[in-house]
Structures are given as C-alpha cells and as structure tokens.
C-alpha cells in the first residue's frame, strides 16, 4: 500500500500475552501491526524464569535431580537423561546395557507425549477443537505406561547416575505392546482428520517458511530443523545410549513450513513406535543400575552432552570443580532458539499466523525461561 505523504498511518502495538489463551504458558509477544499484518515482533520472555542454573549451583548433584523434569514439563525424562549423561561422562562410567534400553524406551514414550501435545496444541491454535482431545486421549495411555515404568505421570525422576531407578514392572511389556499395536491406527486417524483438510492445508502450507540455511543459521533443531530438509538428528548425528543398535528413519520435510513441521512430527510418532518395539525385542538382561558413591563428586572438568528431545537438542554444559555441587550448569534449550526465529519469520504474516506458527514451532515456556 502506498502511503499518502500527508496521511499518517499508525501502527498498532498489540501486547499478546503473557496472559493469552494460546500463549503456551507465559509467552509475551509485542506485535506491531499494520491492520492485521505483522510489521515486527519482539518476543519478551522470562515470565517463567525460575533460575534453574543458579539453583543448580546451590544444590548437590542429587538434590538438583528432582527439579530437572520441571523444565520441559511435558517431556521431563530427556532433561534427566542429559544431566545423568553429563555426570556419567565426567565420572567416566557407563550404565549397564539394560539401563540404556530402558532409557530409550522411556525417552521414546516421552517423545510420543511431547508430539501429542505439539500436534494437538498446534491444531487448537488453528481453531480446531477435536484433534487436541484425540491426542490427549492417546497421551493418557502413554502416561499410564510411564506411570507403570517410573511411578509418575510427568515428573519422573527415573534416570539415575549409572542406570535407571526401576526395572520393568510386571505386565509393562504386555501393555506396552498392546499400545504399540493400537497406536499406528490412531496416528492414521489423526491424519484422516487433519492432514487432508483443505482449511488446515490453507493455514499451514507456505506459512512460516524457514529455509535450510536459515534453520542452521538460527540453530534450530529437532523436527523444526528436519522440516527444513536438514536430516540432523542427534540420535544419529551424535549417537548415544542404545540408539546405534536400533533401526529407525529420520523423516525430513522439504520446504520448512508449518505443514512440514506438523508432518515431521506425525512421522516421528511412527518412528518412535518402531524404536520402542525394537527396544522391547532386544532388551538385554542384567542389572538396571550400578553402585555409585552416595555423595557424588565428579572429577573437575567441563563436559557438554545433549540428547534429542521431542523438541530438538537439549544440551547441558556442566562444569565441575570436584566438589559436591555443580560449579556451573548451562542448559541449552531448543525452544529458546525456535522462539528467537520469530522476529525473522513472522513479519508479513497475519495475526492468525502468530499463534499458528508459534504452535508449529512447538514452544514450551518452562524450557525457554528455565
């Protein structure tokens, strides 16, 4: 639109959040709007900042453990996994193979619930009410499995330095296999409801395009990166735990728009089913944890370990000075990074796309603010 020189058009500043139905917790976006078109975005975060990094410095290694799953509260096991990998790396010990497989099973179940939430929430942001309830219905089954395995639905405290807390409970394998047989049918059901819907296609195709170069430049990871066509998955790229022994595909998108991000998540659900099946088949015997000193004193040094969570790379940079407490624990979060792309990709889109694109990037403010 060509502005008349004497006609002053004002941009409207819309303060979206932190109290907003689709603020994903407490995300605040300061939008500058021209009509309904976005001119610029300034994400303002920190409303859920609880100072985890500082808290870690004031607690012993084991005391801090119970706080980890509060970071990304939708898939807390990954946080614990990364942390114990850091400590194990510093102490140069490795858990027994059965524990590695159990961690993979718990991790993939966590990935499923994380993607459930991502897909359901994305569709809810687009205004569809049913998908979120369908995914929650199946998420409940996974939560039951996780409760059997770890004793908790969300805050697991399952990983231990040198293993995991519990062995498989009786009946878990049977129930898990029953779920794994049923779940692909459910994924097809989601796809029938969502993927072919023309309105959904109109809302997601070509929205929030992130090219492969931009995605790497911005350090995106997880499904957001793979949707842009970069097949970088830490499970393959930087293999850890039992993943080298398991066979799975890395779904990638081609264009990096919201649709590809959604589609990648759907495909990853299927891959997670495959991984859990293989892990249950190949589950080795033996102990699930090892004796470690009750007062952990990892040797002095620094270490960086990362795992592939449902949202991308979650990394811990742990500096130990040989004392009882971590000297410095820096947590690298993929949602923080995904959010930092918003000022780049949002301008030119509509207000409606703000929530759409935020949903497709799968932000979780507990992890962003830390």
């Amino acid at each position, binding site marked *: 639109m060509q502005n008349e020189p004497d006609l002053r058009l004002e941009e409207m*500043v819309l*303060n979206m959040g932190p109290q907003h139905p689709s603020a994903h917790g407490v995300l605040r976006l*300061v939008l500058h709007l021209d009509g309904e078109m976005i001119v610029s975005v300034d994400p*303002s*975060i*920190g409303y859920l*900042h609880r*100072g985890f*990094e*500082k808290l870690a*410095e004031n607690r012993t290694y084991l005391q801090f453990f119970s706080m980890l799953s509060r970071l990304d509260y939708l898939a807390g096991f990954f946080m614990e996994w990364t942390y114990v990998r850091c400590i194990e*790396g*510093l102490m140069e010990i490795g858990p027994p193979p059965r524990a590695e497989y159990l961690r993979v099973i718990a991790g993939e179940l966590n990935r499923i619930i994380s993607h459930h939430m991502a897909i359901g929430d994305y569709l809810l942001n687009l205004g569809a009410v049913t998908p979120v309830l369908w995914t929650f219905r199946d998420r409940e089954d996974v939560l039951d499995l996780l409760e059997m395995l770890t004793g908790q639905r969300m805050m697991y405290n399952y990983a231990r330095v040198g293993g995991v807390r519990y062995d498989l409970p009786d009946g878990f394998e049977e129930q898990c296999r029953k779920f794994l047989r049923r779940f692909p049918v459910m994924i097809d059901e989601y796809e029938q409801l969502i993927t072919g819907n023309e309105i959904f296609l109109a809302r997601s195709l070509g929205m929030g395009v992130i090219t492969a170069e*931009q995605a*790497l*430049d*911005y*350090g995106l990871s997880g499904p957001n990166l793979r949707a842009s066509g*970069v*097949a*970088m*998955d830490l499970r*393959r*790229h*930087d*293999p850890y735990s039992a993943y080298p022994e398991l066979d799975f595909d*890395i779904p990638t998108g081609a264009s990096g728009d919201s649709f590809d991000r959604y589609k990648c998540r759907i495909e990853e659900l299927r891959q997670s089913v495959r991984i859990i099946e293989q892990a249950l088949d190949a589950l080795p015997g033996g102990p699930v944890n090892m004796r470690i000193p009750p007062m952990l004193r990892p040797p002095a*040094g*620094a*270490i*960086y*370990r*990362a795992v592939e969570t449902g949202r991308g*790379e979650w*990394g811990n*940079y742990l*500096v130990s000075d040989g004392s009882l407490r971590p*000297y*410095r624990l*820096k947590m*690298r979060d993929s949602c*923080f*990074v995904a*959010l*930092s792309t918003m000022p*780049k990709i949002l301008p030119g889109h509509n207000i409606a796309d703000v929530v759409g694109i935020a949903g497709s990037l799968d932000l979780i403010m507990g992890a962003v*603010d*830390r």
Partner: protein
Amino acid sequence: MSAEPFVTGSEEAAGLAEELLAGLAAEVYPDAGRVVIVLQPGRLHEAALKLRDDKQLSFKYLSFAGGVDHKDRMEAIYILRSVNHSVVAELRAPLDRSLPVAPTVSDVWSTAGWHERETFDLLGIEYEGHPDLRRILTDAADGVHPLRKDSRPQRVKREEWRFEGIGAPRRLPGEEERINRS
C-alpha cells in the same frame, strides 16, 4: 547433507582444527568427546568465521553461546556442532572479570543473538557489536547479574506496575471529560 554422519574422533577433529586455526588459537585439545579451542577474545570472530566456512569441519550450527564465571576470570563459551561430522567443538575465550567484553558472533550465527543476550543478562558479559543487547530473562534485576558467583539473592525493587509497550491512548480535546463523565 547425509543422514549418516561421517564420524570423526575428537582427536582427529582436534588435529584438523589446530591446522585450520594455526596462529589464532592458543590451545586446541580433545576433552570428553569434544574439541576444546582456547583463544583470545580478540581473535574469536575471525576463528568463528573460519570454523563456520571450513568445508571439512563445517561448524554451521551453534548450539549455544554462554559463559562461566571462574572467580578469577570470566570465560565466554561457544559450543559448535559440525553438520558433516559427529563432532562437537567448544570455543573458550578467557575474559577480564572486572570488565568482561567479547566480540559478538551474532553476525556469524544468527542464533547467537539471543544466546548472547541471555549471557549478558545472567553473567554480564558485554558483546561488542551486538545489534540488540538487552536483558532477556531477568528484566527487573537492574544491574544484577544472577549467575555471577558473587551475586546473592536480593529483593528486586519493583516499580509501580504499568503497561509496557502500549502508549497512553491519544485523547482528542474534550475527550478526557467524556470518559470521566460516563
């Protein structure tokens, strides 16, 4: 980009990096599965560009930029990940603790923009040339950098709450009375 990364040991990668950064890095050594590159802050930017654009190593992916407060010095930390190989590198630049200043690498990797804001917020490291160096997580803690080892919990002075980012509505003459009356 291949799905199966060509896995290099961190020793081998350390050798490559040492060759690449000859004269820039003070020290290059493998440690706990990653390559640690220690260098002076003045050379950080040049080294970052070299590492990113190298065909062999291709550190196009910055995991994060952060820092560590050792009580006698500050360290700026950058964790890089190669897109071709299964290699993680750590750039480490020691800074003066009383006035920690590092050059920004947000023009090398855009993602550094927010990570540097966060480090500035939590540790007080100033990034020279950063386009938008504002506090990001703890806006209210003016002048306090919580992750410094000498910072203690303290009551944050709260201003009277007000809308930020929204200017007062423009009033036409006489509008004030109308609003008050109704």
